[in-house]
């Protein structure tokens, strides 16, 4: 057996931090998953809000109160940023699937562009739409 250390070594992604310096590549890859999964919450809230609007003014008032409360606003603003990040980072993934932008400097610059772009798009959506 060549691999005598099986099961007794840090496994991905838990080596990031204590054993391995976090890099924009791995951090954004993990964030793509986290934002994708987290958007489930916003999806449930929006469907509830739409269904309530279709049912009755009373049902809508309840759903709308939750979505526009301070905690609802916090969740929706967070989801808005998650949606923009997932969208912009998704464009990077589609580019890589076509074999483009795989050089290290391109990976780094598009990564930071996705981070900056997600903040800019969140601000634009919040204040200019």
């Amino acid at each position, binding site marked *: 057996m060549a691999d005598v250390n099986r099961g007794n070594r840090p496994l991905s992604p838990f080596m990031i931090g204590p054993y391995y310096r976090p890099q924009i590549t791995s951090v954004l890859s993990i964030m793509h*998953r986290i934002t*994708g*999964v987290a*958007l*489930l919450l916003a*999806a*449930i809230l*929006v*469907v509830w*809000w*739409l*269904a309530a*609007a*279709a049912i009755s*003014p009373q049902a*809508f*008032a309840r759903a*709308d109160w939750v*979505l*526009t409360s301070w905690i609802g606003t916090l969740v*929706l603003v967070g989801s*808005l940023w998650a*949606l923009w990040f997932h*969208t912009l980072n*998704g*464009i990077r*993934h*589609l580019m890589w*699937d076509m074999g483009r932008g795989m050089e290290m400097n391109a990976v780094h610059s598009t990564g930071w562009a996705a981070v900056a772009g997600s903040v800019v798009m969140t601000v634009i*959506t*919040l204040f200019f*739409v």
Partner: protein
Amino acid sequence: MAFKTDYARVHGLGSAHEGVGHWWQQRLSSIALLPLTFLFLFPFARALGQGHEAVLALYGNWWHALVAVVFLIVGFNHLMSGLQVVIEDYVPTKPARTTLLVLNTIMNWALGAAGVFAVAKIAFSA
């Protein structure tokens, strides 16, 4: 298996035994969601917080109702396939994994259907 060559046995199939179908479907839905996200999000963001009448007026418009329905269908399809990969990656035991995959399918179809029905009801009663 005995009467097939090794190549014929694995042709078009990865470890998931379904080839690249799931991968391709994720890519196609993500490309479709690029314009759909803009088309759905901006009118939705404008209507949010403007009251019941504003929502009824927005989705009483045939174009916004159509965009919302397509966004919900493609969006929940994309969410379902994404969550499926996450479950397959992080849930190692077969019974728990199969249970979660079935629940994932039911949940996304239910949410998508509820959203589409709600928008259609608003659109058709406008």
